[in-house]
């Protein structure tokens, strides 16, 4: 920027920088895929003892990794059969002479357990940030990944790209979702673009990520375990998670192999006395904290409270109805349409249960 310039040079390059970031992800994906397709290229045998998992500074936290025992056993058997790893792992050289794994930790762990002395590896030079990014993307590209792990890694990627904490990213995604559903509120356009581009790379939309994926990270331990073990679909997991905790274990067992509709039917039977809950739960989707509280209140409240809740809803709407001025407010409008949607859902539950409305 010259001394008399009015437009700062960094402003000029803002668009270019954000496109560069978007593009980088798709490039990395392409490069990792290429790496997979030509495994023998440029790899060397490294001693397994000289390899460690990726070490990153505090501010760059790697998402949790799960090494499902059954999958590890399978991989181990395959490595044992081939007397070693075929597809090279991706590492970077650290200053202390060790190699840090960017991609391929499962394979390395198996080798260690099998006592295999060397593993084929590709050594690359990468900064901490880039290493984390590649680690996340490589993880996301692996076919073995569960939806929970994928959600974890995508959140990690979003945190890295947007330089935000987990909670801040969650808040932003909520804002984007609201923005698209025409609700009031503002969102940083550039951040929105970055977040949407990242999700798009993995064929995800913000709205479904917020309502279907994020809740996965807040599942109760029993439910989470069942999803990780592949015994429970993520959709059913979120449904069960809304139920009182003491029912979780039972419901997880009962729901194995059930479709969402079948499970909803089951839940409505289990919950007969509290049949308003599933509908309320839908509305609070994406905000499990609030949900937890409302559930506690619900489950502790006596059954006869059931009627007064909908009576109260009815009375309140009747009162509000007269305040014509109020309904001109956009915030109010958006909430009214939410209520409308919820009522629609109640109607469809009624239909499922065979109750004529």
């Amino acid at each position, binding site marked *: 920027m010259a001394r008399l310039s009015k437009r700062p040079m960094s402003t000029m390059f803002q668009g270019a920088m954000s496109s560069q970031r*978007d593009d980088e992800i798709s490039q990395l994906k392409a490069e990792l895929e290429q790496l997979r397709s030509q495994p023998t290229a*440029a790899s060397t045998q490294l001693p397994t003892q000289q390899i460690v998992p990726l070490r990153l500074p505090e501010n760059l936290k790697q998402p949790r990794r799960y090494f499902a025992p059954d999958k590890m056993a399978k991989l181990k058997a395959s490595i044992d059969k081939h007397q070693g790893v075929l597809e090279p792992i991706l590492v970077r050289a650290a200053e202390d002479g060790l190699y840090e794994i960017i991609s391929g930790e499962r394979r390395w762990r198996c080798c260690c357990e099998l006592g295999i002395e060397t593993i084929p590896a590709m050594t690359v030079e990468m900064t901490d940030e880039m290493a984390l990014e590649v680690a996340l993307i490589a993880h996301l590209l692996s076919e073995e990944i569960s939806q929970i792990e994928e959600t974890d890694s995508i959140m990690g990627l979003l945190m890295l790209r947007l330089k935000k904490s987990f909670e801040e990213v969650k808040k932003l995604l909520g804002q984007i979702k609201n923005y698209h559903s025409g609700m009031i509120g503002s969102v940083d356009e550039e951040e929105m673009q970055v977040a949407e581009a990242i999700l798009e790379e993995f064929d995800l939309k913000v709205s479904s990520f917020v309502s279907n994926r994020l809740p996965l990270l807040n599942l109760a331990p029993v439910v989470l375990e069942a999803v990780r073990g592949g015994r429970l679909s993520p959709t059913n997991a979120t449904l069960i998670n809304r139920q009182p905790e003491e029912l979780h274990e039972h419901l997880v067992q009962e729901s194995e192999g059930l479709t969402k509709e079948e499970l909803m039917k089951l839940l409505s039977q289990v919950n007969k006395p509290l049949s308003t809950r599933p509908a309320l739960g839908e509305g609070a989707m994406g905000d499990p904290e609030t949900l937890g509280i409302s559930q506690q209140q619900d489950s502790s409240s006596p059954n006869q409270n059931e009627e007064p809740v909908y009576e109260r809803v009815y009375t309140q709407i009747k009162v509000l109805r007269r305040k014509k001025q109020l309904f001109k407010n956009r915030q109010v409008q958006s909430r009214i349409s939410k209520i409308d949607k919820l009522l629609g859902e109640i109607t469809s539950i009624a239909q499922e249960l065979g109750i004529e409305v």
Partner: protein
Amino acid sequence: MIGRSDELPMPQKRIAIQSNSGGVGKTTLAVNLAYQLARKKQTVALFGCDPNGSLTLFCGLDDPVPDQTVDYILRPEFAGDYPLFSAWGDRISGIDACLGGLILSETAQRLTMTKRGEYLLADKLEDYPLPHDIIIFDCPGTIEQLHTVTLAASTHILITLKPEDKDIDAVAKLIDWIYRTRQELRLKPAPDILGIVPNGFKDRAMHRDNLGLSNIADIETLPDIMRTMGISMFPKINDSAHIANAAAAGLPLGLFRPGEPANRIYAEIADAVIGG
């Protein structure tokens, strides 16, 4: 970033020279780069992709008939008979030119109607490979259809600009466009930006400030921003009457005035192309 195998000794490099403003030295860079590459024993095909046809003038050639231009390569009837003219063949070997001209403004329009129009040049070069080590595309002054076509056909991009605010702003938009377009076109491998060549530098405040040569704290400079974006900057080429004179004489600067310091920079860019 991640190592690739080098199965071939050296695959053909295709360099698109682009800018987003006119008169910033694209054709000058094209001919001088070609000359320096030829001195380093590389064979080069220069493609004039600009309707202004300036490459013809800079190569000291005569305006071709429309059938003898880049337009012909992009026609359905083209079957590998590239209309190539030897450039400075009496002085140095290894440089051929495929010329542009006014007809290219019609080509650009036709391409928008053609299936796989964006990939047409890339497709032709794949179906009828040229034997040259390096192909250089001299692009038009502003972003248009021919930019997209050369982007899809190139392995690397060189960007030229004058160190003025308006040019820098235009280049920022060009870079934005490059990243978006190469992603949209799903180019594999995607062309890399080899670097930026600041051209026509004059020793005055704006140029010095923009290139970070003023020693004033707190002003943003192009080299700083390029560093954060990971894009290389080549040394600046000073404004010189000899460069314009060489072009008018239809010669590369290296033949017109071998002692000019700018030749060393063109040679450095040539090294980057060979190594890139």
